């Protein structure tokens, strides 16, 4: 068994992928957005509510692969209860970090470091990025509507 592959599908990834946290469509939500990856058919729906300046009840549903689901699980953990003004920056940084395989644990949770492996599997980058891109779109929409 090939090392790189084992690094990709390490314990954290498998756990978050097969049993993602914050998974499911909440009964109440204010904001939602669907993301779709035409190339492989991955799909995610992101949900959250806004309470004052925080985003809460961050959750998602996905028919994607392990990578996509793990990424969604880790993302919702990361972003839930964050201040609105910090969320966009976090997403930006995470996306750049996933791209370059250099997410740092002084900024993100330790678990999120598992996404640093994706860089070696460029065809899977889209899977990992899809939840983040969708969340970013949702936040931009929300801000635009608020204007």
């Amino acid at each position: 068994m090939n090392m790189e592959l084992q690094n990709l599908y390490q314990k954290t990834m498998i756990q978050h992928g097969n049993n993602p946290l914050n998974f499911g469509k909440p009964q109440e939500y204010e904001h939602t957005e669907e993301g779709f990856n035409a190339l492989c058919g991955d799909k995610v729906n992101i949900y959250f509510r806004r309470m004052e300046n925080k985003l809460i009840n961050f959750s998602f549903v996905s028919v994607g692969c392990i990578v996509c689901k793990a990424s969604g699980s880790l993302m919702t953990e990361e972003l839930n209860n964050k201040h609105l003004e910090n969320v966009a920056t976090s997403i930006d940084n995470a996306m750049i970090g996933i791209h370059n395989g250099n997410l740092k644990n002084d900024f993100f949770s330790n678990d999120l470091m598992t996404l640093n492996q994706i860089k070696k599997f460029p065809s899977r980058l889209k899977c990992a990025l899809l939840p983040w891109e969708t969340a970013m779109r949702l936040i931009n929409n929300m801000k635009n509507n608020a204007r």
Partner: protein
Amino acid sequence: MPSSNKNIFNIDEIRKDFPILDQEINGAPLIYFDNAASTQKPKAVIDAIKSYYENDHSNVHRGVHSLSIRATDLYEASRKKVADYINANSTDEIIFTKGTTDSINLVASSLTKSIQPSDEIVITTMEHHSNIVPWQELCRRTGASLKVAPIDDNGELIIDELERLLCKDTKILALTHTSNTLGTINPIKEIITMAHHLNIKVLIDGAQAIGHQNIDVQDLDCDFYAFSGHKLYGPTGIGVLYGKEDLLNELEPYQFGGEMILKVTFDETTYNSLPYKFEAGTPNIAAAIGLGKAIEYIESINLNACVKQENVVTEYSLKKLKDLSNIKLIGNSENRSSIISFTIENIHPHDIGTILNQRGIAMRTGHHCTMPLMDFYEIPGTIRASFSFYNTESEVDEMVAALQTACEMLG
């Protein structure tokens, strides 16, 4: 040298005709099981393209000089080879296009003026997007209705239901010869006869049938037959639309420009005769020549022998896959081609694809451009192995082993 005039089908020799097969991916020998997406090219085809550019290239049809005559002769000789290969009545019935998608778009677009709002167009649940969206758009433009003939759980067309759908308002039945996802081979000859009784024209999407069985358009009596060169061991960027001569004559032209006209003034334009009426602009000369060479190659190693080898590998693979407990085959048609789709319980196809690739195995995962079919089976996608005559049973063993690993790893 291409391995021509082989008396027996020597797969080791034949694999040597395909330079790409001799390489390692992630440290393992390449196992190319993605032939339904695109086939690999024999050396003979690659060399023909090279030789054309090194010796004979020029624009076609309009030159008095030798290079132009040579290029034109080579280009038209390829048209003749295609016509003979599918037993068309004449070279006028062979339109060179960019590929299957282009061929189907040509027909759907050129029919616009002859379709009424009360007309119906019938397709099937198992069509590729390329044989769905052009018809949706034709319906949108004309007000006609799109009807979809259903399939059963095995992935076979329900012929009775199809028959019920066909009526005097049906203008076109567009269906695939072989499903690129299920491997189903449709009984198109019977279906064409049925449609013709109601005066319905039939377009066959032959993208997955060409090169995997003998095609005789006169015997099938289809009105249109579309396929891509790149799935027939030929170059990218070339395809064919076969059409019956009188139907092609009736069709409006598709694209406009050089080659397809006889006479242009600013007030009026007279179109050229077949097949040029449908070939606007400088054609893909090199790729047409490459496609002719690909046909020559297949004939040299014998199509029937190729199909036999593909069937052996397919049967073997089906047997081995059925032994794996958590695998579900998507498509169990009796009459099937060398395409096998399946899902693995609780594991997303995409993850399987990555693990297979890590062991050098090239397979496609996803919706295979048949999203409505995915909706029918309520799955996000499948894992697909599609074989060619250069594939072997021992390659199948590698695939099965890799699938087992994947299940252990991700389960």
